[in-house]
């Protein structure tokens, strides 16, 4: 995967990095049955006490809700089988999960909870059964009286390079997407629906009767919600606020299709579509139950990870490196990528030389050359107040072009996290 790292001889222009379209000759998604137990990650609230309604040895059905902490939060079993383990699982940035392992049984049996009520779609039903479906719809946003939503934005474009999961869903499951849009409009009262697709594909989607189709620029990171808001809707999201604050609800095509399929069939969808990017660079599509370990997915494509190689959940710009082959497919995992050790970017502690490449590449027009000095010094409050920390859309282009190889994006994400943490503890200290 070194092709994107090579420099043009004439380096005057900005790096021109374009989203990857669905390859014209792509095999249908390969279904991967997990060889090992699937692992569902249930967010564990601080000081939570587990309610013992899920125990090791319990048998669960495909599509069954598993709620450990009685706070309304739940995960959905993606297989039929017996719970084989409950174990703590550390997430990033201080989040903690409980990993529920389920050993798949040979015969599959579907939970029939949704089947009884799917004919009468409602927000309560959706919230009751579909919160953890593939694509992770973020249903709580639909029921926020403080932030009424007026536009549903269906992302048929992907958020990272090399990944084409959402584009594939939009093309291959357009019926489910349309059903999903209708259902979402019905249960939430959202009036307008917009479908985002690649610019040249706008004409091809003329048949969509349920929403306006809009084309997104090919150039990374145009598909980022904040940039879509500015470029296509003419609304800039105020720094530190969200698209929902302006009445726009961005949802992945897969989440919408999953909702469509759920209400159409009465079964909770549990299989996640993934773009798998092996070291040879030839991407493939895979479909697998949520919770399947990344190792199982990669084994299927004969992709082993050698010493120093990165296994990334997501794409090369925004993905997250995984520390274990046991890491499970999550409802919002769109890709797995294996990156050769030699091709992986290294960061350094070299100082900023003020070349300004980051400033010119930043889609949020931030003064990164100045910001990074504050971040390096841990002056997060100043960074937020004077140097637009909250304008960042976390595309990673600044780190990508930095000649000093400063891990700028990491600094920014850390700073945002630290500020949020400080705010959440402030009332306790007061």
């Amino acid at each position, binding site marked *: 995967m070194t092709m994107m790292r*090579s420099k043009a001889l004439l380096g*005057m222009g900005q790096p021109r990095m374009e989203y990857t379209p669905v390859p014209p000759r792509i095999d249908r998604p390969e279904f991967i049955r997990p060889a090992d137990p699937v692992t569902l990650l249930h967010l564990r609230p601080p000081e939570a006490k587990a309610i013992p309604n899920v125990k090791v040895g319990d048998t669960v059905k495909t599509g069954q809700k598993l709620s450990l902490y009685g706070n309304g939060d739940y995960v959905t079993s993606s297989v039929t089988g017996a719970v084989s383990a409950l174990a703590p699982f550390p997430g990033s940035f201080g989040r903690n999960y409980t990993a529920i392992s389920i050993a798949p049984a040979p015969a599959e049996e579907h939970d029939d909870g949704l089947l009884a009520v799917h004919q009468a779609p409602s927000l309560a039903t959706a919230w009751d059964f579909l919160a953890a479906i593939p694509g992770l719809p973020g249903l709580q946003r639909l029921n926020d009286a403080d932030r009424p939503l007026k536009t549903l934005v269906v992302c048929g474009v992907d958020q990272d390079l090399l990944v084409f999961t959402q584009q594939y869903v939009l093309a291959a499951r357009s019926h489910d997407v349309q059903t999903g849009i209708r259902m979402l409009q019905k249960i939430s009262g959202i009036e307008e629906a917009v479908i985002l697709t690649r610019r040249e594909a706008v004409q091809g989607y003329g048949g969509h009767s349920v929403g306006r189709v809009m084309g997104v620029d090919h150039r990374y990171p145009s598909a980022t919600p904040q940039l879509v808001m500015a470029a296509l809707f003419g609304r800039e999201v105020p720094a530190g606020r969200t698209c929902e604050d302006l009445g726009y609800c961005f949802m992945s095509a897969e989440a919408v299709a999953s909702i469509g399929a759920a209400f159409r069939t009465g079964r909770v969808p549990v299989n996640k579509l993934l773009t798998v990017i092996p070291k040879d660079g030839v991407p493939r599509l895979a479909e697998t139950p949520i919770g399947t370990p990344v190792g199982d997915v990669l084994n299927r494509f004969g992709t082993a990870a050698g010493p120093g190689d990165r*296994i990334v959940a997501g794409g090369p710009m925004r993905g997250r490196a995984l520390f274990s082959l*046991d890491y499970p497919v999550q409802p919002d995992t769109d890709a797995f990528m294996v990156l050769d050790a030699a091709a992986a970017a290294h960061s350094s502690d*070299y*100082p900023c*030389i003020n070349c300004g490449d980051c400033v010119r590449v930043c889609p949020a027009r*931030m003064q990164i050359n100045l910001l990074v000095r504050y971040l390096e010094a841990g002056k997060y409050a100043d960074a937020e107040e004077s140097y637009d920390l909250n304008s960042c859309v976390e595309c990673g282009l600044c780190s990508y072009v930095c000649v000093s190889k400063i*891990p700028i994006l990491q600094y920014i994400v850390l700073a945002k996290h630290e500020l949020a943490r400080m705010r959440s503890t402030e009332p306790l200290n007061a």
Partner: protein
Amino acid sequence: MPEKQKLVVSFAPFWHNGNRVTDRSLQIFLAATPAALFGVYRFGLSALGVLALSVSSAVLWELAFTRVAKRPVSVGDGTAAVIGLLFGMMLPASLPWWAVLTGTFIAIVVARQIYGGIGANPFNPAAVAVAILMLAWKQRMDFDTALVNYAFDFPAAFPLGAVKAFGTDAINELSLVDLFIGRQVGGIGSICGAALLAGGVYLILRGVIRWEIPIAFLAGVAVTAAVFHAANPFKFASPAFHLVTGLTLFGAFFLATEDASSPVNFIPMLIFGAAAGAIAVFIRNIGVFAEGLVFAILVGNLIQPLLDKIRPKALGKVG
């Protein structure tokens, strides 16, 4: 879960465009080399001696300081060598060794390392060193005095000195093309405008320097010189003359563009370049020095932090 292989992790992005500080230094060094070699051709081995001493002593000062200050050894990034080369290219070929050593000490230790090293210098280190040498050893830095023992097959007076002393009568005979291809007296590496222009264009195309700064600088020089020339064509030289003499092209492409001491936003780069170019002509025409371009660069550096306050409004910025 039998497998407990722990994988190497790092933070996104996992790709990098491959640009490195060392590569930038190498590009600048390469781009400056033709003009420097022309100086060796023009002034002989003494010029080579000055350049070699300047580059090597700059590297050694950097190495020595980082050792004493217990900072990470940074000579490998090539920036000290670049500063040494650029400093040497502005000197007369006859400058004695002790003055070269003093100059590189000022450039590397005083103007750069004291402020924190690479990326932290508020002023262009090479320009600071030349400015201090011009004030300290006026005669040795004066090209007419310094190069008095050289024989040339072209007028052997420093063109900017001639026009300052005698008005445009003294330079009317000079061909602009001759001046541009290096048939003139000046700093070792700053006399051949053609080579400097080629090096500068190369750096712009490679994305090492930002085109806005040299273009604005040259425009600042040309416009200001045109105003003076229009006011008194007998006293003040034409814009074209100003563009091809002294340190103009060298300053535009190799001094004003120094990363740490120049702005990065579009409008500030234009103001910075234009202001420095204009001040350079002011100093030449009504200042004390026949060629005070390094002072103009330093004044530009001085206002750079203020200039970079002119910046586009960030995405979603409130207020």
